[in-house]
């Protein structure tokens, strides 16, 4: 369930005007920006951008980029883009980091539906004139490259057919791979990156039935190298995305000064999807509502914006 609160009726032109008023002249009325954009869904935001362009012959996004700054600006920039475009931008940022932020890539390719992932790939090509896999492959090496490229190029079957025998045999392969820590990389990459999500759930369930512990627990290892950590992340995302996001949020807030990138990313990308469910998981695990934890760790306009996206009433 989404946390975003948006009015069923709205006027793109009025909003565009109001936004114009909040950025023209001296200073910026951040509260107005938050109060409008923080309450509009993807369709509405798209209409507002179009209306703004038509009324003022200016790109609203560029204008906001120049008027705002810091974590607040980054959050608004990501929020205002179309979801697929946003993910393309996040992917590109992650790839271009000197140490490719593989978690973002894994998240995107494992949590999205096949059609959503396809939309991201298209948006990426439109924006960067390269294919996502092209850039990803060029910036990674070895097993990490194999895993990441396989995950982003997947176009998984999205039906409900399960092959129980296959689930059994592949659960055994996964078990051997984990047990030996030698990680027969080819096989485990193949399974994780090509099987349908329902088939994978059947495989993970079989694993749990056979071994007595869930597969994510079996992968906990302090000394895990980058590749093993990536496998772990992929499995967690495929197995239970909400639990995965809760953990990302918990780590982001816990860290001294908080990891704004991750915090922004999760809240902005999930506010229109399942942030409400993630909030519930967060409360269960931490005994503190997510809003409270976010409020404690952030400040100013950035904080106000995040809380709005989390569903705070004005």
């Amino acid at each position, binding site marked *: 369930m989404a946390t975003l609160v948006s009015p069923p009726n709205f006027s793109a032109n009025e909003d565009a005007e109001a936004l114009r008023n909040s950025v023209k002249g001296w200073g910026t009325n951040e509260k107005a920006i938050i109060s409008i954009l923080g309450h509009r869904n993807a369709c509405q935001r798209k209409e507002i951008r179009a209306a703004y362009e038509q009324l003022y012959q200016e790109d609203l996004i560029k204008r906001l980029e120049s008027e705002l700054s810091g974590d607040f600006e980054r959050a608004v920039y990501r929020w205002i883009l179309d979801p697929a475009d946003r993910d393309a931008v996040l992917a590109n940022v992650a790839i271009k980091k000197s140490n490719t932020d593989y978690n973002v890539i894994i998240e995107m390719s494992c949590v999205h539906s096949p059609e959503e992932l396809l939309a991201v790939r298209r948006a990426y090509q439109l924006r960067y*004139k*390269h294919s996502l*896999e*092209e850039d990803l492959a060029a910036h990674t090496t070895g097993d990490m490259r194999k895993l990441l490229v*396989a995950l982003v190029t*997947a176009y998984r079957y999205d*039906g409900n057919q399960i092959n129980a025998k296959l689930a059994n045999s592949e659960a055994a392969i996964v078990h051997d791979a984990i047990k030996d820590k030698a990680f027969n990389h080819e096989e485990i990459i193949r399974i994780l990156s090509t099987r*349908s999500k329902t088939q994978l759930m059947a495989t993970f369930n079989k694993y749990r039935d056979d071994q007595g512990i869930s597969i994510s627990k079996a992968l906990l290892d302090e000394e895990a190298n980058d590749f093993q950590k990536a496998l772990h992340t992929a499995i967690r995302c495929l197995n239970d995305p909400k639990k995965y996001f809760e953990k990302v949020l918990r780590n982001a807030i816990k860290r001294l000064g908080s990891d704004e990138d991750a915090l922004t990313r999760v809240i902005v990308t999930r506010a229109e999807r399942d942030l409400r469910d993630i909030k519930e998981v967060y409360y269960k695990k931490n005994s503190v509502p997510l809003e409270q934890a976010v409020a404690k760790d952030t400040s100013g306009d950035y904080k106000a914006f995040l809380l709005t996206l989390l569903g705070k009433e004005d």
Partner: protein
Amino acid sequence: MALTDELKTLNNAFSGLGVDEKSLISILGNSHPEERKCFRKGTPHLFKEDERLFERWNDDRVRLLKHEFMRFKNAVVLWAMHPWERDARLVKEALKKGPEVYGVIVEIACTRSSEELLGARKAYHSLFDHSIEEDVAYHIDGPEKKLLVALVSAYRYEGAKVKDDTAKSEAQTLSHAIKNADKTNPIEDDEVIRILSTRSKAHLREVYKHYKEISGQNIDEDLDVALRLKETVQCLCTPQTYFSKVLELALRNDVDKNTKKGLTRVIVTRADTDMKEIKEDYENQYGVSLSNKIEETANGNYKDFLLTLVART
């Protein structure tokens, strides 16, 4: 029917690709039992003398004949199919048949546009309840597995923008990998796979240009020993050369049935796209027009159907 002419015609009616329905109807259909006996005695490759003193059909020939009669039906069914379903079924068939025909997988993954390949992947979901990459990864073993999985998963950028220095350095990488083929099989080389399976076709054309400057040869000529890679490289940027070769092989006399199927496949799948260029390339390479060669080698309805498709452009 004692006339050798009619015997010859009948013989031809049963040889080559497809069957000459009209001759079979007019000659065989009008024949007396005696004439048919003459026919059977006069065609030892079709009928053999049984010890109990009758001429029996050669079982192998009957099996082959079944395929020849079906060629027209297969061509029609394939032609009427949605291109997505066509490609999905062709890949599935290739997976089932085994390594000798994996070239078809390369063909489809590399000669189709990004959207066409995507469509084939969608159709595959509907038809077989699996994804293409899932089945390719699961059923293929051996050195070509990584390349083939990567090729069918690609969603290449289709624009014209190319970075020249990247193209140059990637040509170097390829040249290096090919020179060191005795140490590592280039088809398993991670960089070779990355370049061939992720770069756009426009970019690859630049890479091939630089490759020729570096090594003096065209890249496909240097890959004569690595067939899959050669096919990949050709299909990506000079598909007409690849297709006209497939056709030339299919139209030869003594080739296996998989090679023969190339005729239907190429003509049906390319009649709406680049048939004109394929015809030109074929005539330049082999000195005879494609239509004439089909006229010589194929029979009956099958032949007429193919010629109609080929003549459309």
